[in-house]
């Protein structure tokens, strides 16, 4: 019991040590660093490539582009290997309108990640 009380008393000191020693090493989960077309952008004509890239490896499980005519067929889907950049192309040219890229995947630290990117084709 006394030993437990001592342990509980030193807990704040141990956490303060955590503060001092671990500060420079923490990092956030893998984040999307950019996309092509860029989020919120307007492009003239159908884009040849649609891509997303990350700051840490990501295993993509879903990469879906939808627009005025529903889900857009793509030439290549994600292969579920860990990657920092995924790139594909529309199977047919995109008609003018607003598009949403929806992706989901697994970050290296085990967290499930997801995001949506919007762009407009003029």
């Amino acid at each position, binding site marked *: 019991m006394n030993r437990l009380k001592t342990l509980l008393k030193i807990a704040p000191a141990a956490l303060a040590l955590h503060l001092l020693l671990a500060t420079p090493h*923490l990092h956030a989960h893998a984040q999307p660093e950019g996309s092509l077309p860029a989020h919120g952008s307007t492009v003239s004509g159908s884009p040849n490539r649609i891509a997303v890239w990350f700051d840490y490896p990501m295993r993509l499980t*879903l990469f879906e582009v939808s627009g005025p005519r529903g889900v857009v067929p793509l030439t290549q889907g994600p292969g579920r290997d860990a990657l920092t950049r995924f790139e594909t192309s529309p199977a047919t040219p995109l008609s003018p309108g607003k598009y949403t890229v929806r992706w989901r995947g697994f970050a290296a630290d085990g967290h499930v990640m*997801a995001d949506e990117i919007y762009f407009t084709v003029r």
Partner: protein
Amino acid sequence: MSTALSLLQPLLDLLAQTDGWTWLRVLVAAAFYASALVAVGGVCFGLVFGGNPALDQAAGLRTLVPAAAGVALALLLLQWPLQAGFLGGGTWAAAFDPGLLALVFDGATGQRLLLAGSGLLLLQAFWIVSGRWRGPAAAASLLGAALVLLAFTLVGHSTGAPRALLAVLLLLHLGAVAFWIGALIPLYRISGPPQLGEPAAHVLQRFGLVAAPVVAGLIVAGLWLAWRLLEGWSPLLHSAYGLVLLLKLAVLGLLLALAGLNRWLLVPALVAHAPRARQRLRASIGCEMLLVALILLLTAFLTTTTSP
């Protein structure tokens, strides 16, 4: 009004993007946190404050710990297809897609599932923590509690370097959280029957003394983690993660106020046999439970829907 709305915009955007499948994952994660921490904390409470047969019977930990661990195990297993389903676009077909299930099981998430599952199974031993089996059952339960806590360190920020140090200190942090949360139900139960007056008051006083440094450590660690993850205080007001975290800190503030009220007013009133002290203390502990549930829900929302 418009300034307040613009401050809340990142959170409103996040809420608009959160689909039904994600809400289901949030609810299941929050329920898993709650049941696993009640089980782990219940073991700690029983081993630290147990020993009085009447109090032990009133606390009911021998049934509470295995029951909470059983619920946590079921929720842990449910998280597996829910995660696969989300990765596949939020459908039940994706939830039971063998490829996606294998993908989720492969790596840190699978290790977490195995470790936490083993720990929760071992926690069932608390059922027999009496008589000649007391020693082995207590050891198995403690091992189970340690495995469950260890499992939390396999996914997320603690996997960064230096991993060993982060994992050890995260274990300490989670142990303190479990100690606090796991004590609420037994404290509520033992403060009920009037015939337990003296021994119950003694445990309540001792808990207040032991919990003080634990809570102090939680505050230091929580504020520091928030500052590190957000890389300053500014994102607290300008990101969805920061806003949810701010909400969580506000609820934590209320929880600390209640804990202070219990320690410095309501428990001394109970010890002094003040009128209605017992009812007031139980009402306060009940409110603590509600606030803990809200904090766990916000934590689950934070870890499921967004990142710093």
